[in-house]
């Protein structure tokens, strides 16, 4: 009997024109949490899709419990006891938890009818055994993201999984939910389940994992025992160079007030009041971070400032001039730049060349057009300069934005927004989904812009980022700023509680 429950040996996977995995080895011991670490595009998901039967490797072999197997589709993976929880959940919104879990392997009674009672009983047993509290009769659309994730984990267990692959499971969770997930992972391994955790968050690896396999640009770098390593070593293994985690910065020197929001009220598309009587000031030369759990009015706040959403009441001033009820174009012209949260949906026209994306807000101005006729010469000259200055890696300025990596797409957006020399820069989740190298670069850029005297509004769900980059933290809960703290006087624990609606006094006692 082999020591390992799953072994992937010398895996090589090619796609037309690129080698996604080469010489990768991953050996999973029974009952361990094994991290799979790598930058975006390093080939983590490809490797796991090979294990889950979605891709066939060109070279190498997979062994399960010591026996060589060929996993040609996910059903075979399931039968071998391998389950996967994808980053984007595969759940039917209008079904209950139980209905989702049994989907595709329903218990039958009298041959044709679905035995939902039996299923609910089995699910309740499973959830008690593994400590995954969830109501089997609740509909997916009514429960939180954390609960949905539990349903996904239960789905794999219901199918008899002994090995569970979790693809970036913490990306969508709040700090409290992450803590609960860590508890769940620990009780799973106590029950003999083995876990592969795909992540690029180093702190999580240090906290829960036993061993860690690193891949860089598709190549297997090696496996380390987590107890014998540290965050810095893991980071340099992943990126191939040393990384600074806390961005160096001097204390802020705030000057005049740039943005001033007074008693702002904003409704969302369902006509629910999402921003309630909000007040906020940002001065030139400071970064104000908004901490908060997704869905507490941050998006509506940004959309109201940038003219994308109607303001119900209240006022927004830029340099003491009201920008409350004017169009997005006028807001942009007044000196506001906006790095949007969803770069694919809002930030870029993916089918435009990167050069044309660089003038998305300024194409109608000189020198990019003259009497309504575009000057491609000037547009592409401008783009070449931005690409040079902001180190956007692209084959050419004529390459479609779609073809760039996430990090370079984000760099392109930041280049475009920052280069307009805005008075106010709004950065929403500027490093979402990016790896540590790119994050470092973007944080440095934000601080550099601050030092040039810009006012910066940073919205992020990553507490690390908020604490690291901000000069002032405003906590947003239920549409209001409920607390304002200094980054050097707070910690993640306190912020997490404030974000969940606890009062400052209560949170401070901890």
């Amino acid at each position: 009997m082999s020591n390992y429950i799953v072994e992937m040996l010398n895996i090589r996977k090619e796609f037309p024109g690129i080698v996604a995995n080469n010489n990768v080895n991953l050996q999973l011991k029974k009952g361990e949490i094994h991290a799979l670490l790598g930058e975006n595009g390093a080939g983590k998901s490809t490797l796991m899709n090979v294990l889950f039967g979605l891709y066939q490797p060109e070279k190498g072999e997979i062994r399960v419990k010591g026996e060589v197997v060929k996993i040609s589709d996910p059903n075979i993976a399931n039968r071998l006891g391998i389950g996967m929880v994808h980053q984007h959940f595969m759940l039917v919104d209008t079904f209950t938890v139980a209905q989702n879990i049994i989907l595709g392997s329903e218990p039958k009674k009298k041959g044709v009818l679905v035995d939902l009672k039996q299923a609910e009983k089995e699910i309740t047993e499973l959830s008690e055994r593994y400590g995954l509290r969830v109501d089997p009769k609740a509909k997916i659309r009514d429960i939180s993201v954390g609960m949905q994730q539990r349903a996904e984990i239960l789905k794999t267990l219901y199918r008899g999984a002994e090995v569970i692959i979790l693809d970036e499971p913490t990306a969508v969770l709040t700090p409290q939910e992450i803590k609960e997930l860590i508890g769940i992972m620990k009780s799973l391994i106590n029950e003999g389940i083995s876990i592969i955790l795909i992540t690029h968050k180093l702190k999580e690896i240090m906290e829960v994992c036993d061993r860690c396999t690193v891949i860089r640009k598709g190549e297997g770098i090696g496996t380390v025992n987590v107890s014998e390593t540290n965050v810095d070593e893991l980071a340099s293994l992943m990126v191939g160079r040393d990384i600074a985690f806390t961005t160096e910065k001097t204390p802020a020197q705030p000057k005049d007030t740039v943005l001033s929001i007074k008693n702002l009220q904003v409704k969302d598309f369902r006509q629910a009041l999402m921003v309630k009587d909000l007040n906020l000031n940002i001065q030139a030369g400071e970064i104000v971070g908004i901490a908060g759990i997704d869905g507490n009015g941050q998006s509506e706040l940004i959309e109201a400032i940038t003219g994308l959403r109607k303001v119900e009441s209240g006022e927004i001033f830029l340099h003491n001039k009201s920008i409350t009820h004017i169009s997005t174009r006028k807001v942009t012209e007044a000196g506001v730049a906006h790095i949007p949260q969803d770069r694919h949906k809002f930030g870029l026209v993916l089918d435009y060349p990167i050069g044309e994306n660089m003038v998305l807000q300024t194409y109608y101005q000189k020198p990019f057009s003259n009497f309504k006729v575009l000057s491609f010469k000037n547009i592409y000259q401008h783009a070449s300069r931005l690409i040079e200055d902001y180190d956007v890696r692209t084959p050419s300025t004529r390459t479609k934005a779609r073809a760039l990596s996430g990090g370079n797409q984000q760099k392109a957006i930041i280049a475009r927004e920052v280069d307009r020399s805005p008075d106010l820069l709004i950065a929403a989740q500027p490093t979402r989904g990016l790896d540590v190298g790119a994050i470092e670069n973007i944080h440095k850029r934000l601080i550099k812009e601050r030092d040039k005297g810009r006012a910066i509004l940073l919205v992020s769900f990553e507490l690390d980022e908020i604490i690291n980059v901000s000069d002032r933290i405003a906590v947003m809960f239920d549409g209001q700023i409920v607390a304002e703290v200094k980054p050097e006087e707070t910690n993640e624990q306190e912020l997490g509680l404030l974000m969940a609606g606890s009062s400052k006094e209560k949170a401070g006692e901890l």
Partner: protein
Amino acid sequence: MFSNRTFNLIVPIFSVLLGFLVGAIVMLAFGYSPIEGYRALWNGAFGNSYYLGETIRQSIPLMLTGLAIAFAFRSGLFNIGAEGQVFVGWLAAVWLGIVVDLPTIIHLPLALLVAGLAGALWALIPGLLKATRGVHEVVVTIMMNYIALHLSNHIIRAYLLESGSRTSRISETASLRTEGLTTLFGGSQVHWGFIIAFISAITMWFLLERTTYGYELRAVGYNKHAAHYAGINVKRNIIMAMMISGLFAGLAGAMEGLGTFGSMHTHASFSNLGFDGIAVALLGANTAIGSVISAFLFGALKVGSLSMPPISGVPSELVEIIIAVIIFFVASSYMIRWIVLRFKKEEK
């Protein structure tokens, strides 16, 4: 690997060749000679100046409806309503051609302008509904087609009927046909409308590819969220795209009214010019130059097919099969991409 540009050229050419290949197989299967059949088709389309004239005449409205569909498509809209816009444009052109008395230099441009405006206004309704109420343009334009068909029939019967099912002829000052051109092309019905079609194609290309209007329209077409974020007025662009598309389709109607027929007759069913325009735009990869070329091909096929039964015995419906196969392969360009890549791989 092919660049996208080369590929956009390979797919239509490949599809057309496959269309002819399948047509040949069908002829063989039914005991006809493909060589005879295609010779008759060729001669019927380009055999002498008369046939060439007819081919051009048939291509002109197809070019314009092709441009109409392509323009809307590039702006992210699917204008199924070109058919209805052709009807209102046709009717408006003929009406102005009949009731007004002006010198050619004013009469003809005015009739064209009114036809284009009629098409644009007909397209304004679905554009407005899409922009302000989010009603899908496909549903509205399909309904508008029926309204246009029956409304124009009614107006012809009630107000403009001269004999049988036809309006009276437009006055010479509004006609696109001239004695010289007719003689040059052996008495065919060809008219000066091809100049209108070329100007329209160049206008579309310039507007879409070279101006800030086109930059906005294409941005809205690709990603309206990003366009909105960038401060582009998405609603205004949707309305404008529909209207310009309708303008081209309305002009296509004017080509029939002021050129080919010189009048308008009541229709029992659709003219199919608008629907064929979808095929033209598809084969032309939604570009201006592509639409002009593919409209010419379709015009040649349609006119040439008329000579097939008397000369080679092949039924003219064969051309419908060829067109269907071409469209099938263009639409499944993914498959062609796959085949081409496969061949490339094996070469290595």
